[in-house]
């Protein structure tokens, strides 16, 4: 019955990521490569030729890629995708990670496990902003096999001297990043020069075509010969056996081997390797997900590394890391995260920003903060001593990932080594809460949040805040108000009204509000906070759960009310720099809520505000049902 021979075991597909600046030809390259390697389903090429003709173009290969994706409406690609293709016996997967917004997070999602990269550079334009950004990322995720494709050489007339000059520039750039490109391929993806077939328009070029360069990418190197690292993923108790499961990150295990367990250092032997529906195993190697029993029957925790006694990992509580920061906001010293390393999780705080990479020229500079989607070297203070290996390209060790309070990944943190404690620098070690936001929300019956009310002096902010506070409290919501006068009476008593002091006032108010909100409270802040920049600062400090509310009262009305007599004093020249008189007020362009107080009663507006806040912090029904 079964007359067809079983195919021989195959190597796993080699993932190749395609990176480069926008419009340097990534899509065209991928389209052309799929066509040249005969990787397209029937009828696809005819469709492309047809669509191209319709638009008066010769064959437009990028249509191919875009038609494989969902973004047909705007012609914009939102997220990475993976396209398999084959060269001879060998399987590849092209990781295509385009998209401009949130590029970094989508690119890293696709590219982090790539074995090699094709860096596409327009030979006419040379390295551009994204060329540098992508090259930097290749270095940080440890991709050392880089094929540089000098694209669009047709525009340079296939001129050897011009092409080689462009190569020299890119070589210098990559050299700064300690990346030695494996090969430069001068090519025209559109014309097919040096893609799958050698171009006869560049007889001087003796190197490989792109497909030859890909075929020469080494197969994933084996991690089996390095010292054992087996991070514990879980411990099961099935029947009477206690079974420790995890994936071997490197090295190998054999029944009878002695291993050390985690930071506590207990020792045990691998008693058995358990499996189901396979032949009995006595050994396993890197890459395998295993289940073992230990003798004696010690109980490791998730996150404990099993390692050989003579090859222990490093141990430290201050660690230097490289960082690629994925958030759209800057990162500052003092911020706390969870550091995930394989299956381990540690509470960490950014103790120092050692240097930040300036993307214009890829040089490192001291800085106060890591810019949005920036690259830096930072020092992390860990809440307890942890075990780690310094990051090495091609290994799974030392690949730290920063995770925020909401379990969202906010950065990649390849670990470099133990950080020296620098004398004179403040070591910051805030401890992290073991109580999650979710736990707090469930206990209180609502989320925390910060409702930031801005408006002119006399607009009615404090009055409204207090009105909403009473209403929310009556509904069982844990609520408090921070207003300008309360703050300036105590916490901010040392501050005046200069621009710098006003900004500091906002910063402190936001920091206090943030702490309260993290403990599950609803905080209403009533502060003039006249500038967009100040409120943006507050938004950054608070992060998720920040709501900007504009109390929109005409200045004439405010001045008429003048509850504290301040407008009168300002008009009389007794107060300088008074908002609305001789200092500007920048109204929010798109607040989460706008409350117009003129022509409405106090009760109406307070009801409205309380309703908005109540809705915003309410747990939805599904969540309530999840209450234990």
């Amino acid at each position: 019955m079964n007359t067809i021979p079983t195919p021989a075991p195959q190597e796993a597909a080699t993932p190749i990521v395609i990176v480069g600046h926008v419009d340097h030809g990534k899509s065209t390259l991928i389209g052309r490569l799929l066509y040249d390697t005969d990787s397209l389903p029937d009828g696809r090429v005819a469709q492309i030729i047809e669509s191209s003709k319709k638009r008066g173009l010769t064959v437009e290969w990028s249509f191919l890629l875009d038609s494989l994706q969902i973004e047909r409406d705007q012609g914009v690609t939102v997220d990475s995708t993976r396209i398999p293709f084959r060269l001879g016996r060998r399987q590849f997967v092209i990781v295509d990670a385009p998209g401009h917004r949130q590029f970094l997070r989508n690119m890293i999602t696709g590219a982090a496990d790539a074995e090699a990269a094709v860096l596409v550079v327009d030979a006419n334009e040379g390295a551009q902003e994204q060329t540098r950004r992508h090259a930097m990322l290749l270095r940080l995720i440890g991709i050392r096999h880089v094929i540089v494709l000098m694209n669009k050489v047709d525009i340079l007339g296939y001129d050897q001297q011009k092409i080689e000059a462009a190569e020299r520039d890119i070589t210098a750039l990559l050299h700064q990043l300690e990346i030695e490109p494996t090969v430069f391929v001068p090519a025209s993806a559109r014309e097919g020069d040096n893609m799958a077939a050698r171009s006869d328009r560049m007889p001087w070029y003796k190197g490989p075509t792109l497909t030859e360069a890909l075929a020469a990418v080494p197969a994933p190197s084996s991690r089996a010969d390095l010292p054992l690292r087996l991070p514990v993923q879980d411990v099961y108790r099935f029947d009477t056996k206690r079974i420790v499961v995890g994936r071997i990150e490197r090295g190998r295990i054999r029944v009878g081997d002695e291993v050390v367990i985690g930071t506590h250092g207990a020792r045990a032997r691998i008693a058995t390797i358990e499996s189901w529906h396979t032949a009995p195993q006595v050994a396993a190697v890197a890459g395998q997900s295993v289940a073992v029993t230990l003798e004696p029957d010690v109980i490791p925790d998730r996150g404990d590394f099993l390692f050989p006694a003579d090859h222990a990992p490093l141990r430290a509580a201050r660690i230097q890391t490289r960082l690629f920061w994925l958030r759209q906001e800057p990162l500052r010293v003092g911020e706390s995260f969870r550091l995930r390393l394989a299956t381990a999780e540690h509470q960490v705080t950014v103790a120092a920003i050692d240097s930040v990479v300036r993307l214009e020229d890829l040089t490192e500079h001291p800085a106060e903060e890591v810019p949005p989607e920036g690259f830096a070297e930072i020092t992390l203070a860990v809440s307890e001593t942890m075990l780690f290996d310094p990051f090495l390209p091609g290994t799974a060790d030392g690949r730290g990932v920063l995770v925020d309070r909401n379990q969202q990944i906010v950065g990649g943190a390849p670990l470099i080594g133990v950080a020296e404690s620098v004398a004179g620098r403040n070591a910051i070690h805030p401890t992290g809460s073991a109580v999650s936001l979710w736990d707090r929300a469930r206990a209180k019956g609502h989320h925390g949040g910060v409702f930031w009310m801005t408006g002119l002096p006399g607009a009615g902010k404090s009055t409204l805040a207090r009105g909403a506070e009473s209403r929310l409290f009556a509904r069982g919501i844990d609520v408090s108000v921070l207003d300008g006068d309360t703050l300036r009476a105590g916490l901010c008593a040392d501050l005046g009204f200069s621009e710098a002091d006003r900004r500091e006032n906002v910063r402190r108010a936001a920091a206090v509000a943030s702490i309260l909100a993290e403990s599950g409270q609803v905080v209403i802040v009533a502060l003039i906070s006249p500038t967009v920049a100040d409120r943006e600062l507050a938004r950054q400090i608070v992060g998720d759960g920040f709501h900007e509310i504009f109390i929109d009262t005409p200045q004439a009305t405010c001045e008429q009310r003048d509850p504290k007599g301040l407008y009168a004093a300002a008009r009389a020249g007794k107060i300088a720099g008074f908002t609305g008189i001789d200092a500007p007020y920048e109204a929010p362009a798109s607040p989460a809520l706008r409350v117009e107080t003129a022509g409405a009663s106090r009760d109406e507006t307070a009801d409205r505000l309380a309703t908005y806040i109540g809705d915003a912090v309410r747990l939805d029904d599904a969540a309530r049902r999840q209450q234990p």
Partner: protein
Amino acid sequence: MDDLDQLEAQSIFILREAYRKLKPLAMLWSLGKDSNVMVWLARKAFLGRVPFPVMHVDTGKKFPEMYRFRDEYTKKWNLELLLGDCPPVEEIDPTLPPAARSAARKTAGLAAMIDKYKLAGVIAGIRRDEQATRAKERVFSPRGSGHKWDVRNQPPEFWDQYATPHEPGMHVRVHPLLSWREIDIWRYIEREGIPLVDLYFAKDGKRYRSLGDQDITSPVESNASTVAEVIAELETSRTSERSGRAMDHESEDAFERLRVAGYL
């Protein structure tokens, strides 16, 4: 380790992550080839048992062979089976094309089960190579309240670190087979001897390549009547796996609309 060993090891890792991090957890079992492979991988991950329930969201329109298969293997594999039904088609968004509207019943049925069992995690056997929107998926794909998939704002996912739910009412779809291709599934079925509904094998020159409801799935022309013959056929085939699925061809955005709303 060859490519199947590697796929298997990665899927086991993902299943164990899901079991550790998402409680309560359940696995979808559509009775098709992929979900049988998925149940099999769970048995490998947990040493012969499946420590969470499997769910069949029943449209009532499956083939009789599939119901027989379900009853037989629930017993043989000692599975805890949760059954859910689907609302009638009249209750489904009438702006969807007919086959997609019919398929959307399953989304509603699934949503009801997730709510009923308060699931934090649902393991599903989708693969990237099946359909363009599936290619965009994460291994751990968080779904907000209303079970919506926000394709434009997916979390970063790399170095085997996955996002877990952080808001009440959220759940996570876990996709342990995302990196598998159709041919990998068949080669693994052959290697492991995983049983299948025999609709996948040719009779009178036709076989099913993908199994959905009776009214929206058609067989393809084929003479492949054994697993080995199916593998040989796939190695030369240039038509897509879901060519027999009506809803994929109704309108350009039908599938995407379904998926955003929570369809698999």
